[in-house]
């Protein structure tokens, strides 16, 4: 299971600062189990954001937000509500946020930090997309994770090594992650986001917090995987 936790509300409200209307996205999979992005939490978030003066144009709780093809189909049914919103707030793991960002040309803000994937990278297969860093940066990078998309895991912009949008490591097959981030941010009008200097990552957050490790859920998960 992919373990996520909600970011503190002030952090989320900071992300939504320039947006008046928001569309909420949740997931019936891991996020529901973690109580971060199930229907109940989405409705709770709706209320909190409305209290903070935001207009919620609609919401959708998708069966598995990590299933990119399904996300596109499910969100298509809410096209008008999404078009009416300035941005989307995605209350799931990093993979769900990235899947949403990849199908909607609007900012997809992360509402959660992803703590542990338990070896499971969701239904959007093909490559590693979330490093379960526990301090999601997708807000600043247009919904493309620099820790994974950039070979060097740089968080403050591209190195000087990319040529024609390809990474200096395996240029034949590997895109420059920062080139992708740049293109995406340009497309959604958020290029100023990468002007923020991000502090060095807190790698201690990559370890699941003790409180989580002591839960029954966690114990079951570990037992199931035979560890």
């Amino acid at each position, binding site marked *: 299971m992919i373990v996520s936790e909600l970011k503190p509300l002030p952090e989320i409200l900071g992300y939504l600062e320039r947006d008046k209307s928001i569309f909420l996205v949740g997931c019936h999979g891991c996020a529901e189990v973690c109580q971060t992005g199930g229907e109940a939490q989405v409705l709770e978030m709706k209320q909190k954001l409305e209290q903070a003066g935001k207009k919620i144009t609609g919401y959708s709780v998708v069966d598995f937000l990590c299933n990119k093809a399904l996300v596109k189909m499910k969100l298509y049914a809410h096209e008008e509500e999404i078009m009416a919103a300035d941005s989307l707030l995605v209350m799931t793991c990093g993979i769900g946020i990235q899947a949403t960002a990849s199908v909607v040309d609007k900012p997809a803000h992360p509402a959660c930090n992803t703590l542990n994937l338990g070896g499971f990278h969701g239904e959007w297969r093909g490559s590693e997309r979330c490093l379960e860093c526990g301090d999601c940066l997708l807000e600043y990078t247009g919904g493309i994770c620099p820790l994974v998309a950039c*070979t*060097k*895991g*740089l*968080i*403050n*912009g*591209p*190195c*000087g*090594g*990319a*040529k*024609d949008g390809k*990474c*200096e*490591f*395996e240029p034949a097959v590997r895109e420059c992650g*920062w*080139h992708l981030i*740049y293109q995406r941010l340009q497309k959604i009008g958020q*290029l100023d986001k*990468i*002007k923020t*200097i*991000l*502090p*060095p*990552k807190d*790698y201690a957050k990559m370890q699941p917090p003790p409180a989580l490790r002591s839960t029954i859920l966690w114990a079951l998960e570990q037992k199931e995987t035979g560890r």
Partner: protein
Amino acid sequence: MGLAEALKNGKFVVTAEVAPPKGVDVQEMLENAELLKGKVDAVNITDQQSSVMRLGSLVSCYLIKQKGLDPVFQVTCRDRNRLALQSDLLSAYALGITNVLCLTGDYVSLGDHPNAKPVFDLDSVSLLKVAKTLEEGYDLAGKPLKGTPKFLLGAVVNPGAEPLEPQIIKMEKKVKAGAQFFQTQGVFEPAKFEKFVKASAYLRVSVLAGIIPLRSVAMARFMNKAVAGVHVPEEIIEELDRATDKPKKSIEIAGRLIRELKGMCQGVHIMAIGWEKRVPAILEAAGLV
């Protein structure tokens, strides 16, 4: 005169790159440095450039400083985590080495130990910030230092990158993080460089344009194919190809480029890559000595 003073006085600054040897025989490196004495304002010592394992930059800086030159300690984020990087910055200051060039570093796959674990705990922007934090008397964890260092912080930028905008954005972040001067990737097209100069003028920071002497036609073609942001125009390659005395022509081309770039930047940074002995001739061809 050292680099800090040269930048402050607004003179046309010249720096050159010297690479530490692969091994412990430092004689040639010191000879190369000796040739530059009195001709350049500072000598950059590379940090295992192209991810090839070599003698360390810090020790080489120290040896070159003892010869009376002003070294620029190049530091990449590829091989050291935040503890080692901070420690090395403190070590540099303790040895009297205060010019630091902060770089990301090439990926490990480009060098001779492609199976190494790449670090990149910090990036070039956060490394600059960390150096500033040390100057304020604290380490990255907020713990006070016993005695505080003071650095002249440099960074790099690739003026030939396409698109250019992400490079300029990162350059701005580097300036905000504390970069006081920039050295660039090799420049062969003054017109293109001028566009970069205009795009980055708002940052009001000293830029030393990178000069790479062309050792051969093959080298020029290789760089066009493999090196990001470097483009040697076909006219220059043909000019070199036609010449009977290729080294002489190469020096002439480098000298001419420096003359052409002179009005657009605060100085030049010569990366001779094996041709260190010819740097004085290049400076002569450029009319700088």
